[in-house]
């Protein structure tokens, strides 16, 4: 049996499809017995869905530091 902490980590990995088959199996077993983790898993999956849906955009760190440098000059 795995702990809730481990289950949460696997659940997060699964959101980025980086959990191995064994890990997923372990998680499934844990979810059968743990209500809190089932709830967390559900919400976590929802977060992934809305993040995909929103088509988030962001600047890379390089672009940001370039921006900062330009702004610093003006200050």
């Amino acid at each position, binding site marked *: 049996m795995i702990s809730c902490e481990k289950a949460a980590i696997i659940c*997060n990995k699964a959101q980025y499809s980086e959990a191995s088959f064994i890990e997923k199996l372990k998680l499934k077993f844990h979810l059968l017995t743990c209500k809190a983790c089932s709830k967390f898993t559900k919400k976590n999956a929802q977060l992934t869905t809305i993040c995909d849906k*929103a088509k*988030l955009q*962001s*600047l890379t760190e390089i672009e*940001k530091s370039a921006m900062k440098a330009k*702004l610093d000059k003006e200050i």
Partner: protein
Amino acid sequence: MPAIKYDYKNKSMKLIKTNSLIFGNDEKQMPLNKLHPNTWVDAYADYLFNYAVGRVSDAEIARDLVQETFFAGLKSAKNYKGDATERTWLIAILKRKVIDHYRKINSKKGKAEVRMNYSASSDSEGDWLEEQVADPFSSFENDAIENEELGLAIHGCISKLPKKQSMVFKMKTIQGMSTEDICNELNINPSNLWVMIHRARTALVGCLNQNWFEL
């Protein structure tokens, strides 16, 4: 609660509404918002960028607009009265920048003209406008608007996370970088990364619960 004050200058009694009931103090003593230009890029760049991309649909132009917004904000910092938050103020500037951008690209007369064919695919001519009306049952436009608001809500929540967590979350979720690359770039080990991702996600769920909808 209305209070009666004696105005010595005009020698008259005046009925003045005070906010003493709500704030327990005079309005003047309320803390005003202040500008911190050196934190702008970290705090608002992604939020503004998301907003701009939704309007100009070109990442490069959007990035330039955000940069211009920061410059303009710096220039007119002395006009900032402090009654809006920094973010609201910057968004207001960005809105003007977006409008300016469209004005610039539409400055040539012909571009402003609207040409409408009866149908783009066939050669048949005519101007049956009623057939060009938006489909009332299409959910596409509404979805687009809703998704943009959702994106802003998520970015608002991300900006409340601690710096490192938000960085890791953005790299992983938005830029889709591999675990290995992030670990190399930030000099952390994978288990460290997953713990940070976990904290970020938990905080985000909580924040979106409050600000967006029941998640």
